[in-house]
């Protein structure tokens, strides 16, 4: 049973973090360079952080980066770690974590579908949620859903009044 501080010490010693932060009780956030991340995941997994909640992706359009966030949890420490890393938005390629957590394959597939991020080593990246999607990956910030909807669908006509925001 480690507390947050002991955990951060462990991370500082072993993982070369760019920044660490105790967000609040039982929640820790760690920023890492992309090259260290996969290694950090397997390190933490072997230190009781066996539970991968999910992988989130944030599109920082202005900074030209995708931020990948791996949420880990330990059944021993009861601490949630968010491991963050930023990769270049173009071309948006990263390593797969499939070898560490097989289930990551599907989280990565999801991110690939909605952000267009490629994961090297994960060859199962075909469409899963959408069907015949021909446009920009929809969760990217430069995809404008309202414009798309205006083009694709017709609004119901309420006596000349359009259905709007």
């Amino acid at each position, binding site marked *: 049973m480690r507390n947050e501080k002991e955990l951060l010490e462990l991370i500082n010693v072993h993982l070369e973090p760019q920044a660490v932060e105790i967000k609040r009780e039982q929640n820790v956030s760690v920023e890492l360079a992309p090259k260290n991340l996969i290694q950090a995941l397997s390190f933490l997994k072997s230190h009781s952080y066996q539970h991968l909640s999910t992988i989130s992706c944030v599109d920082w359009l202005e900074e030209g980066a995708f931020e990948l966030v791996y949420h880990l949890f330990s059944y021993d420490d009861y601490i949630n770690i968010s491991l963050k890393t930023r990769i270049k938005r173009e071309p948006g390629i990263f390593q797969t974590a499939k070898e560490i957590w097989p289930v990551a394959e599907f989280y990565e597939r999801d991110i690939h579908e909605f952000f267009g991020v490629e994961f090297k080593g994960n060859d199962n990246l075909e469409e899963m949620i959408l069907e015949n999607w021909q446009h920009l990956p929809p969760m990217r910030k430069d995809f404008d*859903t309202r414009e798309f909807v205006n083009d694709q669908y017709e609004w119901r006509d309420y006596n000349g009044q359009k*259905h709007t925001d």
Partner: protein
Amino acid sequence: MNNNFVKGSWQEILDWAQNKSINMLHYCTGCGAIELPPTMTSRYDMSRFGIGPAATPRQADLLLVTGYLSTKTLRRLIYTYEQMQAPKFVVGFGSCTINGGMYWDSYNTIKQLDKYLPVEMYIAGCMPRPEAILDGLLKLKKMINNGEADGYQRYQDNLEFYHQNQEAVLGEVQRTQ
């Protein structure tokens, strides 16, 4: 003339039987489906109006589109609708089928069901309460009894219109042979 009369009254009898016995396809297309179990089960019990569930489209008369329709579902819904046997009725359920409702700006849901399938009636609400559903279905029964629920004929008559709309959002649409 006599023949027509017989035919007419036979059709009336069939309409009457149809209105008393409706099998609803068990297809939860959207979140509105969560209010169907209460409607079907002990508290509201729609079976007392002769409305029951059906497992496959072949046995169903009523396609209840329970809520928003993603394009992926729409493709399957069209195929399912075409597998159903006339007379068949479509009821749009929830605001999302009318104008997109809550998801009016979603890139993946359609906004007006009646452009793709011939809708007999809509039940508004997000989501409609069981009472509203029952009320809607009772009205549908009345429509069937009066021979006004003729969606499947409209679909046949305006096949091109519907197909065009369907293909506009889905691209190629698989149909029954």
